């Protein structure tokens, strides 16, 4: 029998039982659709996070206290207090790290901010005036605090656009008092709308001098992180190396595995994001793969039923000249066509699903979450579904081909 005839026969066989064929396909459709959706949404999420990370700028380096957590029990290290004033002083010395353009210590905390009866839960950032240079945020009204005011631990605040709207609405904010932890701060600057910048959402932030934050809000003598700007992107590796050497010398660390600080560059953050979303994607893929296997078992089940039901047909075909191979091909093709069409349906369904998810998510979180057509996923889904048809169709097909023509013809 020619392949063309085998195909025709197989398609006819499937069309005779439309409902059953469709239901059998459903298992494969769902499996492939979930693979597509997982791949596509995963990729979208990754791109979204990477976009935000790159908002920080390629020249920026973050120094965090504590050593790299080695496991879940290691989290206490995250709260380490190893970065203090002397570290900032040492890093500021050109002889130690010549490649640094600017740096600022940073403290973060969440507090409610009050003004004239209005309250807003804001992120408080304690930093130096250089933060505005590093993050490239300039007040649209007013100014940033200066070095002198930092030394004096002045109670001054620069507020984000969202904080301004919530507390003052359309009225003037400059010169007004806001209250954070029962301490009055004078608003000296309002920032333009900026959105998410790396880990900070600038719009709902109140920026105050780090000295003030340390003493009056947190009552600590260390920093949460140090933000460093290198002179150029090319200088980043060199700066990273110099920072490590400086801090190790200062902290008297001889063994690098005992480092009490961590350095994050944009490349490293991107790498981490990719690793995390990659692991998540793989986990979800495994779940999707399991559903595909279940779908495959469904195909095998239905093919076995079909073979039993068509015992007479098999006998007749053999009587009029079909070889075992012809029968094997017929039933194998039926299951492969079934799963292949299931795969195509799954791709269409999965693309629609992920497109819908991307669209509604970007509406809900109002972020530029872009839909990417998962070509790899589509090809993978198609290949996998065809393979499933082959693997799970082989047993029923071989059962069919082994039937003896007289037994088959006698079957009632």
């Amino acid at each position, binding site marked *: 029998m020619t392949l063309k005839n085998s195909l025709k026969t197989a398609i006819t066989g499937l069309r005779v039982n439309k409902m059953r064929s469709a239901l059998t396909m459903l298992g494969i459709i769902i499996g492939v659709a979930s693979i597509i959706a997982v791949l596509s949404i995963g990729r979208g999420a990754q791109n979204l996070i990477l976009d935000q990370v790159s908002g920080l700028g390629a020249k920026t380096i973050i120094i965090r206290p504590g050593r790299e957590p080695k496991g879940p029990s290691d989290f206490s290290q995250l709260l380490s207090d190893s970065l203090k004033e002397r570290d900032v002083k040492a890093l500021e010395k050109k002889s130690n790290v010549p490649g640094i353009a600017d740096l600022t210590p940073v403290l973060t905390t969440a507090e409610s901010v009050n003004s004239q009866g209005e309250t807003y839960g804001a992120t408080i950032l304690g930093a130096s005036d250089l933060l505005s240079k590093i993050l490239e945020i300039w007040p649209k009204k007013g100014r940033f605090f200066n070095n002198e005011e930092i030394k004096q631990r002045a109670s001054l605040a620069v507020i984000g656009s969202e904080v301004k709207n919530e507390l003052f609405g359309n009225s003037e904010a400059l010169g007004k008092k806001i209250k954070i932890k029962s301490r009055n701060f004078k608003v000296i600057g309002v920032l333009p709308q900026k959105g998410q910048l790396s880990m900070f959402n600038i719009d709902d932030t109140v920026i105050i001098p780090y000295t003030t934050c340390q003493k009056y809000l947190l009552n600590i003598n260390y920093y949460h992180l140090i933000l460093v700007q290198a002179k150029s992107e090319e200088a980043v590796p060199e700066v990273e190396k110099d920072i490590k050497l400086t801090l190790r010398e200062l902290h008297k660390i001889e063994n690098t595995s005992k480092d009490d600080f961590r350095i994050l560059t944009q490349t490293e953050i991107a790498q981490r994001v990719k690793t995390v979303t990659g692991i998540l994607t793989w986990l979800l893929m495994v779940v999707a793969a399991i559903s595909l296997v279940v779908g495959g078992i469904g195909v095998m089940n239905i093919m076995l039923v079909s073979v039993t039901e068509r015992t007479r047909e098999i006998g007749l075909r053999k009587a009029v000249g079909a070889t075992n191979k012809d029968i094997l091909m017929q039933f194998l093709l039926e299951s492969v066509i079934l799963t292949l069409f299931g795969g195509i349906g799954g791709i269409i369904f999965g693309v629609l699903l992920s497109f819908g998810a991307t669209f509604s998510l970007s509406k809900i979180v109002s972020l530029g979450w872009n839909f990417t057509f998962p070509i790899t996923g589509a090809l993978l889904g198609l290949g996998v579904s065809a393979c499933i048809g082959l693997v799970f169709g082989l047993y029923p097909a071989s059962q069919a081909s082994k039937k*003896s023509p007289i037994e088959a013809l006698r079957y009632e």
Partner: protein
Amino acid sequence: MALIEVKNLEKIYFDGGVETPALRGVSFSISEGEFVAVTGPSGSGKSSLLHILGFLDRPTKGEYRFGGKTIDELSDIDLAKTRNKKFGFVFQNFNLLPRTNVLENVKLPLLYSELKEKVQEELAKKAIEAVGISHRISHLPSQLSGGERQRVAIARAIVQNPKIIFADEPTGNLDSKSGEKIMKIFQELNKIGHTILLVTHETYTAQYAQRILKMKDGKIANDVKVTNQRLVEKDGFIK
């Protein structure tokens, strides 16, 4: 030369360790162009004989030569090819594919040949015309009467112009009038040169043949020439 030659043919079925002999040494030969009826009560082994002669089953013992070749020399693929090109089968319960029209049913054996699609179409139409059901060509089996269904089955059997037609109780599921029409078709097919082996338990139906092999307990009890063959006039079924 004999078309079919069997010597001491034996067939034993093994069912759960129990041996059931169906044929206990059968010998005869059939020449090309003969119309032979095999009769006998149920359990006499006539169906087993037909299955072996039709290459649907292999004998347990003995020799079967078809066209000079013994069945032992042929592989399963050779058997399938022979069934396809040289044999035609007609069954009691028609065995047409449901939900498949007359033309496609008749074409079925051709799907397993190497003939071109155009030739297949021509041959199928010719066979359908020969049994007089051209007007039903795109009907489904469920839309046909029993007699018409059996005629479709005959068209399917003769579509490749086989050397021999095996008919297993072809009138068993038909009323006497339709049955008679079917037997007429067989006689006319025989007249134009087809060898026919008919299995039936009705003596009346066997009378259409030229020779009757009576079977009993897995053996041939009687091999007679029919002297008063029930003849039918040529009435245009076969062209």
